[in-house]
């Protein structure tokens, strides 16, 4: 496990709010030199604490007005291969994330679509036809906020 000091925490907090800011601006906030700040960021990246950087896009402005979370239960456990299901579901472009979970459902999917009728098309043609897909529950996302977490 990786131990963080106060400066690391400050950097992670600042970058999780705005990853686009320059090392210079961040260095000024921290009262560190720019190379020192840059080395800190590089270390956190090398250690794998910072896994990646992601572009945040306005989905509505991109013409993707609907995000739906699907809980999927496999129909015939044991007789179908999880790999086949996972391979097929991963290949669907509208499916953004696939999580294998334990509980009421086996998989949790995040699906984006242009609108509700486009979502219906994805659901009927792509999701319902997946090998082994059984019960599906849909919840339409209304709002979402990422929290800083225990940094």
């Amino acid at each position, binding site marked *: 496990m990786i131990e963080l000091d106060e400066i690391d925490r400050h950097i992670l907090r600042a970058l999780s709010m705005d990853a686009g800011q320059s090392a210079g601006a961040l260095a000024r906030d921290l009262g560190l030199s720019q190379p020192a700040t840059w080395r800190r960021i590089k270390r956190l990246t090398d250690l794998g604490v*910072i896994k990646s950087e992601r572009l*945040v896009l306005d989905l509505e*402005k991109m013409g993707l007005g609907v995000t739906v979370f699907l809980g999927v239960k496999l129909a015939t456990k044991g007789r179908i291969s999880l790999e086949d299901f996972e391979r097929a579901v991963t290949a669907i472009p509208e499916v953004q994330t696939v999580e294998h*979970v334990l*509980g009421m459902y086996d998989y949790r999917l995040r699906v984006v679509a242009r609108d509700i009728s486009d979502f219906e098309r994805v659901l009927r043609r792509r999701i319902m036809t997946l090998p082994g897909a059984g019960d599906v529950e849909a919840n339409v996302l209304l709002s979402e906020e*990422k929290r800083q977490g225990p940094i």
Partner: protein
Amino acid sequence: MLDDLDRRILRHYQVDPAMAMTELADRAATTPAVASRRLARLRDNGVIKGREIIIDWQALGYEVEVSLRITLDKTQPRAFDEFIDAARLVREVIEIQTFLGRVDVRLSVIARDMGHYQTIYRNQILTLPHIAEIEALMHVARIKTAEGLPI
């Protein structure tokens, strides 16, 4: 609206937001000057909202992630607001989503281990206001993470 060039640029840019402008331009089959002008416009229009880092909580010793699906007592007119305000104060909550469907709110909770999770669940989650029903999904694996939108 976005034209084909905007889409091409975004498609490559979302894969790696740290990519150099010359390389991005190359991949989108345009010049660096045009690409940076387009990106500036996409930022001004709010299509690009910013960049965020993805923190690997496992690297920081958080081995457990649980999705809590919560139904609220909707006879309380301020149920949503009061619940969400209180949930924001729980440091281990890294995501809050609201839905239209069978589930009202979903919280992503991380913990160091099952014992830690149990403590958070009893002391900080079950004490949140207006919960009618709560259901947990335990994360086993991420099969696909938001690599990109179907642009």
